[in-house]
């Protein structure tokens, strides 16, 4: 029993840690694009990678200050959004989906390629770029701190605190936007583009704004992740993260301000709890070794997540915060 409480504490830390912040910022971005505007961005991780590498390359390779790195990362994300949006946003939704998924995979392969090694340091990645950021912490980052039975290093705590502040600011921004006439226009675009065009709105511009905003939020997520892990490696930015963020968004409830935030916390909590819990149960023989070995746990936890999502979609398709009436409406 004590071990399960330990597992719970570990899971709680995961649900509050910078990984959850990373996922939450990705999911908030996707919420703007998919939840409100109806754009299918299947390459959100590419924006995160540009954010993380924006800092990493600027600081480690070019010797620029941390803040310049942040600006570089954000600009790179804006440029990527414009490049992806310009040709595809006039077309049907599927084209953006194809372009983004290809861009995410292509950029990762480019960053880890030999020819890019002088800049990105290839598969070994970059590190040692977060000193300036950690030094900003108002507390002693060399100490360890205990919160609610979980142990945090000072630097980790600082990244996490800044991360949640970013999540709060992003949520406030989204809240302000979606209750404004701007939000009404993008939600209408999700419902029917042509109707919005016929009422004199430049649909293309709104879609572009949503794509850029979502991409910038994703870049912030990537920065938090790079600072949290103190390294930037192309293979940290696998596109599976995009789909994990979609799952978190659907779990929390799409087109709700807090949906992606709560969804991401819960998602990491469940993944970590399943992981540690199963290992504990295998370790003390509750689950026989023949049925499930400790090496299978990493895969099994995602099976459990998948099962959970299926049950969610059957019994609560609107997610945690969604409005069932709204979700059940025929989208025409």
């Amino acid at each position, binding site marked *: 029993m004590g071990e399960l409480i330990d597992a719970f504490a570990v899971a709680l830390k995961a649900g509050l840690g910078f990984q959850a912040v990373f996922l939450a910022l990705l999911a908030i971005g996707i919420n703007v694009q998919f939840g409100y505007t109806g754009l299918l961005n299947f390459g959100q991780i590419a924006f995160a990678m540009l954010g993380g590498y924006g800092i990493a390359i600027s600081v480690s390779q070019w010797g620029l200050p941390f803040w310049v790195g942040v600006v570089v990362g954000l600009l790179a994300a804006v440029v990527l959004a414009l490049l992806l949006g310009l040709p595809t946003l006039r077309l049907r939704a599927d084209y953006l989906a194809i372009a983004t998924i290809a861009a995410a995979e292509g950029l990762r392969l480019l960053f880890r390629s030999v020819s890019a090694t002088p800049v990105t340091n290839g598969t070994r990645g970059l590190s040692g770029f977060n000193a300036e950021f950690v030094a900003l912490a108002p507390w002693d980052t060399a100490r360890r701190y205990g919160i609610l039975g979980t142990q945090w290093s000072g630097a980790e705590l600082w990244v996490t605190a800044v991360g949640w502040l970013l999540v709060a600011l992003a949520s406030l921004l989204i809240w302000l*936007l979606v209750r*404004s006439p*701007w939000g009404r226009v993008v*939600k*209408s675009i*999700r419902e029917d583009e042509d*109707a919005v065009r016929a009422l*004199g709105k430049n649909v293309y511009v709104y879609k572009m704004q949503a794509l850029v905003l979502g991409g910038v939020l994703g870049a912030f997520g990537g920065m938090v992740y790079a600072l949290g892990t103190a390294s930037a490696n192309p293979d940290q930015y696998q596109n599976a993260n995009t789909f994990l963020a979609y799952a978190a968004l659907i779990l929390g409830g799409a087109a709700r301000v807090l949906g992606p935030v709560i969804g991401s916390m819960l998602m990491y909590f469940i993944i970590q709890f399943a992981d540690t819990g199963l290992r504990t149960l295998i370790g003390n023989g509750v689950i026989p070794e023949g049925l499930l070995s400790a090496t299978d746990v990493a895969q099994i936890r995602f099976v459990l997540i998948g099962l959970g999502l299926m049950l969610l979609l059957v019994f609560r398709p609107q997610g945690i915060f969604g409005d069932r009436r709204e979700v059940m*409406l025929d989208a025409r």
Partner: protein
Amino acid sequence: MPADQTPGQPAAGGAHAASLDPAATGGAPRLLARAALRDVAWEVGVPKPDPAIVVDGVTRSFGGLTAVSVDHLEVQRGGITGLIGPNGAGKTTLFNLLTGFDQPNTGTWSFDGRPLGKLAPHQVARLGVVRTFQLTKALSRLTVLQNMLLGAQGQKGESFWRALVPGTWRAQERANTEKAMELLGRFKLDRKKDDFAGTLSGGQRKLLEMARALMSDPKVVMLDEPMAGVNPALTQSLLGHVKDLREEGMTVVFVEHDMDVVRDISDWVVVMAAGKVIAEGPPQSISQNQAVVDAYLGAHHDAPLTIEEEDRVLAEAEAAIAREQHAEGDVIGSETRREENR
């Protein structure tokens, strides 16, 4: 039926001046539009006394099919123009072209003298030409009131940065909401204002779409089959609303299949078939127009034929076959003989 009508005659000029100021004349626009069109010839491409929309040489083809090929068409300002024609006549394609939703292969058209040819749909809408769709486009997961508010033009809060400062758009939003509620009241949807538009019935969606279009204070309203799939009781109220648009000085163009509706509300009817305008005129002229009757019903529409007529048609056909046989030799001849023996 004076065929030598030219724009700018005293009567027509008077109608023009008055139709620009409908408020001053009260219920008169209907009569004015009719009066202005009374002396116009019943000819395809005839000039109107005061055209709001002028179409010139517009063609649009999809592959080998020419969907629209209109040489010249003028739409009278302040009147209700009905656009009719059999399925596939190109009515909706013409609508799409006029509102920027589709680009033509050739041709130009203008609204109030401003060319519309190169404009995107939203630019056309901003000029005051707003349309509805054949398949109603209610925005399902927005409430009825939100649907209405979307229609308002020049909203400050629709810009990204100003949206973040509610103070810049609150007052405008309140004014728009008031206007929306007034319109919803007129269309008897005010009690539904907080319902999702997706929960409305088909007819209510048509009403909502029309009301939403009116939120933009349009000059020209283009309605694509406003009565399709609407029950007869609601049709009457929709008809009333369409007439009201004219009373308020708007120009209405609508596509409709129900001839009773067309006869009831149109000041002028344009008939299309196979992409071309085949007839124009006041509603009562259309049912007598041979080209229209043929386009809709085929040449031999007075079914059923009497026995004598049937014999005569048969004899004519046989004679024709015999002639062809004579001219084109045995292959076709043997075919047709087999047909006859059956």
